[in-house]
């Protein structure tokens, strides 16, 4: 249980500010436009489709951060719902 929360204390506002800034700067620095994400999405669909049947409408891709607290790195996170795997010929 979070001790601070138990005593009804919110986290200091500067920590909230720092977290918000980190995330927004990842976006600003990468300069990712919605168009860019759409392009990536299209290409992912193209490639994955060779191996699996995917739910194109459910495909989600976003720009965010990942990694340990304090040394986060920008990350492209994609969620690709698969309807059915395709038979892949063995090489």
């Amino acid at each position, binding site marked *: 249980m979070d001790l601070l929360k138990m005593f009804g204390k919110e986290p200091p506002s*500067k920590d909230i500010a*720092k977290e*918000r800034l980190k995330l927004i700067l990842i976006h*600003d620095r990468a300069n990712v436009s919605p168009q860019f994400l759409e392009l990536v999405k299209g290409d992912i669909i193209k490639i994955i489709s060779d191996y699996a049947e995917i739910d194109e409408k459910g495909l989600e891709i976003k720009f965010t951060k990942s990694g340990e607290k304090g040394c986060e790195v920008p990350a492209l996170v994609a969620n690709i719902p698969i309807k059915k795997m395709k038979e892949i010929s063995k090489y």
Partner: protein
Amino acid sequence: MGISIVVTSGKGGVGKTTTTANISTGLAMLGKKVVAIDADTGLRNLDLHLGLENRIVYNLVDVVEGVCRLKQALIKDKRYENLYLLPTAQTRDKTAVKPEQMEKLVNELKEEFDYIVIDCPAGIEHGFENAVAGADMAVVVTTPEVSAVRDADRIIGKLEAKGLDNHQLIINRIKYEMTKKGEMLNIDDMTDILAIKLLGIVPEDEKIVISTNRGEPVITDEGAKAGQAYKNIVRRITGEEVPFIDFEDENTGFFSALKKFFFKK
């Protein structure tokens, strides 16, 4: 050959002009030959900060357009004879000067002055392009607020894209009472987020308002905390290693060390 320094921020109102006035005055106090350039055409203010508004005849735009010679537009400071101001036009807009013209002018001034300090307008458009055109070094000013830090990051990106790799950060208007309570971004938070070299920390100080009223940069006020902060910044610019005083902990700071020394037990 002199060194040109542009003072920039992205966000408006964070203290660029105040910083320019104090850095240029401070460098002059150390005996350097300095010229401060107002690159905020249309919204000039540097003349007011230096208390020289009544002496302006020609300006930057006149020089660029060939109306007068560069020497004629330079205004000598009241207090320091090795400090000059190159004001800009108040009734023109930023497109009146081109980056190439600015670069040429700054290079010309570098032949004669030790330091050229350029006050950049807010924003990332034409005025910014002009102000950074001839700069060897950039000082990025920010305040401990999310919007100012975000805009500073944008400016740092722009400077890096231009190859202006010598850029350093001034954090202005720190309120130690608030950082202590965790209600304001502190120095570590900001250097961590922006990942650039720290040039200085300037506390929130009412004396800045008073000195701006008078047209006398706060660095000339011996008793002002902000003035002390600018003095350290200036020394760092000249290459001296000056430790960062941790104002945050009043018990380890310079002033309290002094107090302890005099009022032992």
